[in-house]
């Protein structure tokens, strides 16, 4: 390298260094990083962790069943302040219980402070429960509730098999929820305090809670298929308010 090039290079380096200095001076003193919250969902059936396609569970009505698929949305995920007002943290999230990466998400930039609980809907809130209102991606599209049936989205697809009443034939069950009147509103009261750093909020869905309290749901008598059966959907959605627990 020739001498004049070397000088040019040196000047360049000096300039670059000064760029950096200047930048630091211009910026205001950084505020301490805000908190974040990672919400993690796990699944169980009355304390037994979820294993797919295995006829090992029994619900309150005594149906012997297995689980094949569990996909659902949470929406309007909010923190509840002590005055009962809610701070919306995330519009919606899609869960597929079989795909680990979908079963947690992180909310950034939570200001320091305390909250008395967490609230959300299982399903999509009415303002977005219109076909095409959610971002266009394969997960959302597969949850579409057909236009000829009113449009919007499936709130949940919970599917599996059960032994019929005579105990000799395996039938499928499809607990599908949709339609605004079946939105499940959940509030979990347990104080959370944010003071920098990441806070992990663990929740468990107990699948058996879908089948009891207030309605003991029996696949043989209440129906093994809920879609387009408004009474069946009403029972399942009413049972849904306490499927989640925080621990």
């Amino acid at each position, binding site marked *: 390298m020739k001498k004049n090039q070397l000088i040019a*290079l040196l000047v360049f380096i000096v300039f670059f260094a000064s760029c950096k200095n200047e930048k630091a001076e211009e910026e205001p003193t950084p505020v301490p990083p805000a908190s974040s919250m990672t919400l993690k969902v796990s699944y169980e059936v009355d304390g037994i962790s979820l294993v797919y396609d295995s006829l090992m569970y029994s619900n309150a009505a005594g149906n012997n069943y297995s689980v094949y698929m569990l996909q659902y949305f949470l929406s309007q995920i909010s923190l509840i302040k002590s005055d009962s007002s809610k701070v919306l943290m995330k519009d919606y999230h899609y869960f597929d219980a079989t795909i680990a990466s979908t079963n947690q998400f992180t909310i950034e930039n939570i200001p320091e402070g305390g909250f008395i609980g967490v609230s959300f809907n299982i399903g999509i809130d009415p303002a977005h429960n219109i076909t095409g209102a959610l971002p266009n991606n394969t997960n959302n599209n597969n949850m579409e509730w057909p236009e000829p049936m009113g449009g919007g989205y499936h709130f949940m697809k919970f599917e599996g098999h059960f032994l019929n009443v005579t105990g000799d034939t395996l039938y499928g069950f499809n607990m599908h929820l949709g339609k605004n009147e079946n939105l499940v509103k959940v509030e979990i009261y347990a104080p959370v305090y944010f003071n920098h750093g990441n806070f992990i909020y663990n929740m468990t869905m107990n699948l058996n809670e879908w089948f009891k309290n207030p309605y003991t749901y029996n696949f043989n008598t209440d129906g093994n298929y809920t879609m387009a059966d408004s009474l069946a959907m009403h029972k399942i959605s009413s049972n849904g308010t306490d499927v989640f627990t925080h621990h």
Partner: protein
Amino acid sequence: MKKELCYLAAAFFLVLIYPSCKKDNKTNEVPVVPYTPTPYQLKVPAGFPQPVLPDFNPLTEEGVRLGRMLFYDSIVSSNGLRCASCHDAQKAFSKGIFVLGGENISVPPLENLAWNPDFEWFGQVNALDHVPIGDFTPDFFNPNMDTLVRRIKNHPQYPTLFYQAFNVSDVGAITHDELKYKISYAIIQFVRTLISSNSKYDRFVKHQVILTPEEMDGYITYYTEKGDCFHCHGSILLTSNTYNNTGLDTVFTGQNQGRYLVTGNPNDIGRFSAPSLRNIELTAPYMHDGRFQTLDDVVEFYNSGVHLNSLNIDPLMTKPAKLNGLQLTVQDKANLIAFLKTLTDTSFINNPDFLPPH
């Protein structure tokens, strides 16, 4: 000094140094044609989600051009076969039955594959880019790789295209495996451009046309509990990309074991990839083994032929309304088929960009 001004000055100095540094270099190995592939912009149709494209095989104009030539060229085989032998544009890039190991396999169409998560009837292959690797086997192209290299080198266009698409100036200087991958990658770049989005159904969804009363009735059967086709063949891509046992069989041997052959999970016995029903009118025969010749046969199967006692039967198939068959009338069935035919996209099969290059 302002931050922007400062970076500008720095950039200026860099420009000053760079050419003078280069002058010190003695050898000049810049090729005659510079390697500057042009990114290919995949046109995502209105209403379609964004496809997930792999970083390892980015679409380029040159790659798509090379791939299109190779797709239609039997240079890749020792037996005259080429992709187009089994993937015929007029049949939405499908073609009847292929017999492998004494078993029938229905050749699937090639359409909108940029949106699929996995491929083939049991989801054997996870990356679309790797599907053609399976074609370099004795059952398919059975190529002699040395001959293939020689043919490509002697070809008037391929050497330049391989350079422009992949920076490979001599296909003889890379390994045979590398060459197979380059060929596959180029062909798949072309396959990713095979997008069908202009059927009558697409235009109906966009409120540009109305369906006939028969088609509309079929649409309602399809998209309600009456026929319940939408759970597995729904939304704009007309597939849920799931694996399901629809109750075609009760005994499972060979290919009929389906997804189980990939996962080894007994719960996957009899489960098959739910295909998109786009262009279904053109892709007979139907099902993984092509057992049904016509759409009437398929609809009659869903109407009255489902084996409810099949192992791992999909939960959707045992709804109360289905336990005694769908109970569709002759008119219901005809209308459902009329609707299925609105999924045919003639502008797709006649798109000049998808036909053999001249």
